[in-house]
């Protein structure tokens, strides 16, 4: 994975001192909260319900054991012994003191981490495929492209006060594990005439007006990559709406202008920008890519598995994925124990996952947008021992992509924007469907819960989605069906009137019963819904 050189270190160190100065000025009363807010947000520091919240960037979700141990250390020393992995592949601490924030950043910098641009109206942490570099189906590792964009977007002087936040995702496989087309810019690395380049999708997003990003350009060669994105952002910075924050995302600009007109504007801007010589040379790409070279696999690693322990066999089938290297596998550690808090991990669990990565995964971990942790390169021969250690730490829930593998935002338990709680609902649903045999019978079923219309819990993209709303001071939940964040991307449709907390658990059970009764061979819940439409589900839920 990427390692800082003197330049990266210098920039991050300067950022720590800059933020220390900004915090000191705020504490001394030299700047008001209005002036400080955008400064602290640009560094991922929010004021939430109970305290400040600090969001630490995990660029494209990749980190090593030293970084993971640091996250555990910070949880113990400055927070309350745990952290929350987010749908942006980052980690959040919920109980941070403003006066501690500069010291936390200084500690993070020692392991090449930071909180730069994890909030604010700027280019956010670049997200990517959590199986990058390991997936059997990928064309190439997308992370060198993502790292190139991390550097390009860090403290970009022109794009630090955009109309609204800006999220970029880079993938390089046909299977989309990162909700690529639900980003402001989604990039798929593709091959054309033996050359790698980028297919650019612009204007996707969730929030109150969900949109699927249309294709703007089918192939941008490496030599034009940064220039083209610079042009995409400049058109947005100049023409994105600033009169209404709810209409300020680029998806609204694309929607109002039309994708063709936007693409034409970008081409015109690109013609001007390309002449400036702002594209890094291939040597820089090669330098970055060398950091992502495959680890030293054991070519003789056995490719067979002992499945005799039935609990292990279930976990293998559910949480272990195909690796490009024979004898190796990709392990997803579920952070969704039945009745637990989706995405939360204690400092001890974080330390353990770090140790396991060091021992079994070439010192590498990934954070997934579904709030789980991946060990990307595990010898198949090590899987049983690994599973036993995970099981003893309560980290071996065999529910990846099943109904209890729920994405949930922090909701009204933590978040000042939320209208309803998300976590208790996730706990009730997981508990109702706790039987693993029943879950596996239901098969792949992505359930996603947001506690408000901002959709941090990706409810639009859930096969089953839930949106918490405030109905006259009482929590109420809307049910959506038919969304997907994968390569078969679609947006969910609201079933009808909303439910109480208990009511929606019943409604979900009724919907799954329709699926079980009407599914055809090999159909997932989503496929049956797409074939039958809303009517039979609606009838079962409300009839």
């Amino acid at each position: 994975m990427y390692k800082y050189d003197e330049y990266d270190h210098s920039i991050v160190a300067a950022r720590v001192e800059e933020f220390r100065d900004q915090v000191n000025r705020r504490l001394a009363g030299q700047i008001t909260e209005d002036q400080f807010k955008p400064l602290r947000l640009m560094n991922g520091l929010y004021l939430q319900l109970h305290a400040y919240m600090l969001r630490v960037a995990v660029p494209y979700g990749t980190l090593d054991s030293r970084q993971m141990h640091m996250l555990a250390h910070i949880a113990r020393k400055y927070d309350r012994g745990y952290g929350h992995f987010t749908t942006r592949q980052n980690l959040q601490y919920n109980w941070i003191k403003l006066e501690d924030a500069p010291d936390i950043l200084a500690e993070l910098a020692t392991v090449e981490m930071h909180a730069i641009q994890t909030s604010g109206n700027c280019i956010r942490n670049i997200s990517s495929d959590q199986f990058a570099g390991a997936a059997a189906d990928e064309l190439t590792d997308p992370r060198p492209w993502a790292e190139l964009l991390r550097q390009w977007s860090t403290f970009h002087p022109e794009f630090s006060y955009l109309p609204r936040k800006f999220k970029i995702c880079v993938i390089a496989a046909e299977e989309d594990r990162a909700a690529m087309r639900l980003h402001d810019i989604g990039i798929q690395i593709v091959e054309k005439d033996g050359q790698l380049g980028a297919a650019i999708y612009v204007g996707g997003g969730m929030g109150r007006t969900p949109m699927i990003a249309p294709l703007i350009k089918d192939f941008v060669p490496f030599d034009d990559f940064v220039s083209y994105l610079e042009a995409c952002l400049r058109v947005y910075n100049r023409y994105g709406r600033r009169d209404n924050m709810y209409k300020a995302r680029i998806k609204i600009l694309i929607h109002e202008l039309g994708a063709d007109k936007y693409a034409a504007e970008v081409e015109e801007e690109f013609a001007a920008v390309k002449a400036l010589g702002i594209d890094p040379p291939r040597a820089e790409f090669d330098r970055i890519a060398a950091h992502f070279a495959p680890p030293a696999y054991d070519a003789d690693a056995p490719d067979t598995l002992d499945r005799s322990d039935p609990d292990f066999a279930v976990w293998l089938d559910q949480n272990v994925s195909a690796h490009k290297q024979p004898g190796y596998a990709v392990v997803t550690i579920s952070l969704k124990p039945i009745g637990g808090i989706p995405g939360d991990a204690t400092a001890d669990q974080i330390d353990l996952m770090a140790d396991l990565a060091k021992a079994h995964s070439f010192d590498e971990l990934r954070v997934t947008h579904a709030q789980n942790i991946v060990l990307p390169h595990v010898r198949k021969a090590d899987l049983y021992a690994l599973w036993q250690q995970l099981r003893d730490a309560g980290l071996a829930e065999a529910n990846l992509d099943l109904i209890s593998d729920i994405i949930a935002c922090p909701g009204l338990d933590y978040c000042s924007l939320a209208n309803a709680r998300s976590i208790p609902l996730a706990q009730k649903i997981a508990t109702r469907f706790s039987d693993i045999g029943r879950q596996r019978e239901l098969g792949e079923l992505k359930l996603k819960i947001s506690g408000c219309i901002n959709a941090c819990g990706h409810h639009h993209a859930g096969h089953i989605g839930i949106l918490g709303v405030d109905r006259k001071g009482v929590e109420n939940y809307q049910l959506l069906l038919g969304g997907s964040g994968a390569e078969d991307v679609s947006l969910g449709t609201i079933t009808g009137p909303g439910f109480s907390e208990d009511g929606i658990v019943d409604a979900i059970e009724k919907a799954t019963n329709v699926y079980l009764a009407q599914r055809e061979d090999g159909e997932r819940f989503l496929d049956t819904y797409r074939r039958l439409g809303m009517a039979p589900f609606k009838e079962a839920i409300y009839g």
Partner: protein
Amino acid sequence: MKLLTGNDLASGDVTWWTGAGWSRHVEDAVDVGDQGEAIAHAEEGARRVNGPYVIDATLTPEGPRPAHIKDRIRALGPTVRPDLTLKPADPNAGSWVI
């Protein structure tokens, strides 16, 4: 009744106006009547509070009860982590929120 609440600038802790200063406990909160905005302005200017705002509440035998669930969760702590609330020993504390 009207309560004045905000967060401590340095620590971020949820605080409530007691008439003489700020407390972490909603039980200590007093009715600010129509003085909320003026107190908020003065206290924010002195950096004794961050982001103060006035809320509606009712007075109950147990003390003031914020009208909105969001402020009740702020007063207690996250309902999903009773150990981290202000009343970790009270198994029924969460029901006060609902």
